[in-house]
């Protein structure tokens, strides 16, 4: 075992411990004031992992369906990586909901108006398709007709899931900066950008595909630009609309501004754009970090916090609330540990893919 592999393993184990501890603390009653900030870091976590998983798969599947020969040798690895990203996301979904035992009602008492109900269906379709594709690729290879058919269907489910996750925000009439926003298309763009980053890191961890990693580095630049453009466009649109303007002011020049400009714009977009061609893994890592920061704070937290300033009922509720609903309380929570720790699950599953596949009897 080389030094870097050993380091990655130790890092992965530590992250997995954080993942377990964070979930346990949250389940024991930890977490923020959920009447004021209902969706915390755990929600961000499962969206992040779903988008990242979808992004890795989408890009690979598109290349495969277009007949790109270079991707065929890496299809199994990338499908596995995509699955390894989805796994902690699904664990976070069932850890975040307070009564997971009621989950069968997602299907038994399906509410077609609810985007979250559709998420439950799409998670199942996407996860099932991804699992079937991964197994088939490892047993038969990526070019058999059935694998291509499953890849096409799973690609559709993946894109629908990404957009639908965004719609769960965009239908929310009570949070001004979410309502009617471009979250669905933004989430697809974020998925592709994060997917490029994770693909580069996956190839590096598995010491595979230096040529294709360079192609992904180029793709990272385009997808990052697209995500940043849509995020910026959303902010400009919201700035002109009454109560949503408070969120924009907070993000661009208020308390969240340093996080937005340094964490997202500089670290997440400009730095990866500048170094993507020379140092793809570093660019990928920075992009993932910056996009996670954007998703967690300017996108998820700030509109909920801004509602406490612009909606008189929430303003009054916040004043009488027993717990603060500030940024620090939001970030310094067991949910954050669980979110960050989820990366350890992905890391270990990618590092020890061969062993796990061997145990599962899928080692081709």
């Amino acid at each position, binding site marked *: 075992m080389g030094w870097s592999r050993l380091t990655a393993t130790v890092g992965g184990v530590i992250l997995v411990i954080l993942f377990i501890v964070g979930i346990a603390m949250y389940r024991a*009653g930890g*977490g923020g004031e*959920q*009447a004021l900030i*209902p*969706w915390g870091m755990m929600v961000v976590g499962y969206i992040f992992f779903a988008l990242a998983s979808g992004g890795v798969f989408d890009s690979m599947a598109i290349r495969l369906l277009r007949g790109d020969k270079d991707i065929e040798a890496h299809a199994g690895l990338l499908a596995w990586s995509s699955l390894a990203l989805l796994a902690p996301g699904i664990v976070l979904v069932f850890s*975040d*909901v*307070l*009564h*997971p035992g*009621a*989950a069968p*009602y*997602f299907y038994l*008492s*399906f*509410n077609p*108006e*609810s*985007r*979250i*109900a559709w*998420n*439950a269906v799409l998670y199942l379709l996407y996860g099932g398709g991804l699992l079937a594709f991964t197994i088939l690729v490892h047993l038969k290879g990526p070019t058999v007709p059935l694998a291509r058919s499953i890849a096409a269907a799973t690609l559709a489910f993946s894109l629908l899931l990404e957009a639908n996750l965004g719609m*769960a925000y965009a*239908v*929310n*009439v*009570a*949070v001004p900066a979410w309502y009617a926003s471009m979250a669905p298309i933004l989430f697809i763009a974020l998925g592709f950008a994060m997917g490029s980053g994770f693909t580069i890191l996956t190839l590096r961890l598995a010491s595979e595909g230096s040529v294709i990693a360079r192609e992904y580095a180029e793709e990272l630049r385009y997808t990052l630009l697209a995500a940043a453009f849509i995020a910026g466009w959303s902010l400009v649109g919201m700035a002109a609309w009454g109560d949503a303007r408070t969120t924009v002011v907070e993000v661009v020049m208020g308390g969240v501004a340093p996080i937005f400009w340094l964490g997202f714009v500089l670290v997440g977009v400009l730095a990866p754009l500048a170094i993507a061609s020379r140092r793809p893994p570093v660019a990928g890592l920075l992009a993932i970090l910056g996009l996670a920061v954007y998703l967690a704070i300017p996108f998820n937290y700030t509109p*909920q916090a801004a509602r406490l300033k612009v*909606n*008189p*009922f*929430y*303003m*009054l*509720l916040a*004043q*009488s*609330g*027993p717990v603060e609903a500030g940024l620090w309380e939001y970030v310094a929570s067991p949910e954050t540990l669980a979110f960050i720790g989820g990366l350890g699950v992905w890391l270990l599953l990618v590092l020890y893919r061969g062993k796990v596949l061997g145990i599962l009897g899928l080692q081709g």
Partner: protein
Amino acid sequence: MGRRRVMMLIDMNSCVGCMACVVACIRENIARQNRGDVEIPEDAVYHARTKPEYAGMELGLTGDIPIFIQCQHCDNPPCEMVCPTGATYIDEDGVVALDHGKCVGCRACIAACPYGARTIYRRPLAGEPLSGGEGFQPGYPDKCTFCRHRKRGEGLWTPACIEACAFGARLFGYEEDVIESSEGRAVRLLEALGTEPKVLYILPVKGRR
């Protein structure tokens, strides 16, 4: 002809801010509905299903008049629309209700409510909350039910807050009767959102005190 739907009117000119309705709500929904077996949390007023807040300038009212934050039992409830499991639903009387057995705890209803009407208690609650009922239970997005657990057979029932109000500031009845009683003076909150609340308010005449 469909079933008659219920509605509540709160006349803020008659409200003296005595909080009897809030105390009655806590006693009914946290204590009695749990057979008196739970210890009432320290921040019980925050978790009351009708809670007074001094709206002051935000709602264009005089500062000493409380507005009561509570479920508005909307005809077009955003919380019902987003609920993935059908746990939040409108019953045959028009009450927006929560089926605890179906609630998965995703908190989408809390995020979707423009009235701040739902709170959630995440800490351990001393005692034994009664599962399966409509009382206050930790980990669920709690809200006003118009005390529909008091309904016996057909016809109207009396919510605890109505029973407790000595000044006649609250009226509960069938929709058409309540609207008639309001004499055209009542307003719905955040009407522009199209939620069509079934709690009406008669706003106070400024400076009446």
